[in-house]
């Protein structure tokens, strides 16, 4: 090593800043109250730190440094606000007292609850959570969500205005709202996770890894609330799903369905972590939808080959899921499990009943499942037509490509080759 002062790798600085972001924001909001302005001030302190720490090294007390810089910035923002200019004397009274050390309590949960306030749309909840809790910059959020920076910036500032207008304060919601708010929090984390599953590689170079970010935030939440079975279930579901990532896309960029994946390429450590976590969680407490989905993912991940999948157990889990959290996709997935246990004709009978749900009547996934069951039943011509129909209906490019491939394969006589 040469050089007078110790410099730090930008990636490590970045990681440290993202961890500190909610803590620093918590200190500021406690001190000044106004979430929107505090958030802007923290964001600017993070940007300043990213530059300065990478060049000059990490200060002795990183959260203290951030609080000090953010507080100074808050004062400037407050003073430059023309609407408040007349009250500047009050501002002077409020200007930063002594920098505080990091607080004893963790504000991450309070912040998550605030970012998932029911007055916000899901898109705004996601953007605000990534910024206020995840410590991402607006530019990074825009790249991650595939929208222009101006759109992301507007979404964040509007979300802050909406929160202010709703009169929400920085504190835990009242007990009777808490479970609904927790559901919103887990849903936002799950949205962030799914948002990361983009097959696009075009601008992937500088994309923030949203799946990793979702796992990081969920892990934090799980550490804060180890007794919450649904948070544990969500974390397990993420790990068990993400474990298959290396096998999900072929060298040509095409999606590979679960049954055809090369299971030796799955991330064994992630599978082990997910299985251990969900097994531990299911043993106590009430069972919720994320736990059941994680349990289903675990059954899939534990099968050494697709043919060895324990479908009767999966069907039982879908029965439970259907009772706890019914929905069109649960219905369809359950139909597939029925077909795997009782044969394609039984599946087709269940599918006819499922079609009565208006949410499913012309849904591409319904057509895709019917195609799959017809194919299994040996009616390749009808399967081909249904795959084509599903391909026309889907809004997802990789899925469309996959469905067209299945249509072509179903149209061909089966002696083309085994398996793949």
């Amino acid at each position, binding site marked *: 090593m040469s050089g007078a002062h110790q410099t730090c790798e930008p990636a490590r600085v970045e990681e440290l800043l993202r961890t500190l972001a909610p803590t620093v924001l918590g200190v500021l909001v406690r001190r000044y109250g106004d979430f929107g302005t505090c958030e802007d001030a923290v964001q600017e302190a993070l940007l300043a730190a990213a530059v300065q720490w990478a060049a000059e090294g990490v200060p002795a007390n990183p959260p203290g440094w951030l609080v000090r810089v953010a507080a100074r910035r808050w004062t400037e923002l407050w003073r430059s606000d023309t609407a408040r200019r007349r009250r500047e004397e009050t501002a002077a009274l409020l200007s930063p007292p002594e920098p505080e050390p990091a607080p004893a309590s963790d504000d991450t949960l309070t912040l998550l609850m605030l970012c998932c306030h029911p007055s916000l749309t899901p898109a705004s909840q996601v953007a605000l959570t990534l910024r206020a809790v995840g410590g991402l910059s607006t530019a990074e959020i825009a790249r991650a969500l595939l929208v222009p920076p101006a*759109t992301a910036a507007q979404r964040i500032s509007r979300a802050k205005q909406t929160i202010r207008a709703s009169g929400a304060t920085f504190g835990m919601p009242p007990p009777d709202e808490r479970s609904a708010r927790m559901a919103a929090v887990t849903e936002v984390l799950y949205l962030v996770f*799914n948002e990361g599953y983009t097959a696009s590689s075009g601008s992937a170079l500088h994309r923030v890894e949203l799946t990793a970010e979702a796992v990081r935030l969920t892990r934090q939440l799980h550490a804060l609330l180890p007794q919450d079975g649904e948070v544990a279930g969500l974390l397990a579901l993420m790990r068990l799903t993400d474990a298959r990532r290396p096998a999900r896309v072929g060298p040509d960029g095409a999606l590979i*369905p679960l049954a055809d994946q090369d299971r030796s390429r799955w991330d064994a450590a992630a599978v082990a972590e997910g299985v251990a976590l969900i097994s531990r969680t299911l043993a106590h407490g009430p069972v919720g939808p994320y736990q059941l989905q994680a349990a289903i993912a675990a059954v899939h991940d534990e099968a050494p080959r697709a043919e060895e999948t324990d479908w009767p157990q999966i069907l039982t889990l879908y029965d439970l899921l259907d009772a706890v959290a019914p929905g069109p996709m649960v219905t369809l997935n359950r139909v597939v499990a029925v077909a795997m246990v009782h044969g394609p004709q039984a599946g087709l009978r269940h599918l006819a009943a499922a079609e009565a749900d208006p949410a499913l009547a012309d849904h591409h996934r319904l057509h895709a499942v019917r195609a799959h069951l017809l194919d299994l039943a040996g009616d390749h011509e009808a399967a081909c037509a249904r795959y084509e129909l599903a391909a026309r209906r889907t809004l997802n490019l990789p899925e469309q490509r996959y469905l067209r491939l299945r249509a072509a394969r179903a149209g061909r006589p089966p002696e083309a080759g085994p398996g793949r």
Partner: protein
Amino acid sequence: MKYVILIHSNPAAWDALSEAQKVEVGRRHLALTDDLAASGELIVTEALADPSLTRHVMVRDGRTVAGDGPFAEVKEHLAGFYLVDCDSMDRALAHAARLAPYGEIEVRPVMDLHAVLDV
């Protein structure tokens, strides 16, 4: 979800509008653009130049040729578009409906590139 709102214009119908109505169309576009930007749903919007300025690009015998194109007798042309990111088709339709009194408005979902979780 991203949606594109396509505005098809019929020159004959446009010419039949009064000056006040033409101004009203412009107002509606400005108001919609402002509202979409404020709500964080606007990705981009553009008005397109007159169709007489259109050039068509073709490859003939390995050579690229640009020309006015063999597309005469088109009653309607694409006059502009909005690319929006909103929560549902219904929401996109509600935005589009604000333009509907003056023109043929088409709303179409945009394909996304997310790798679906369990096909």
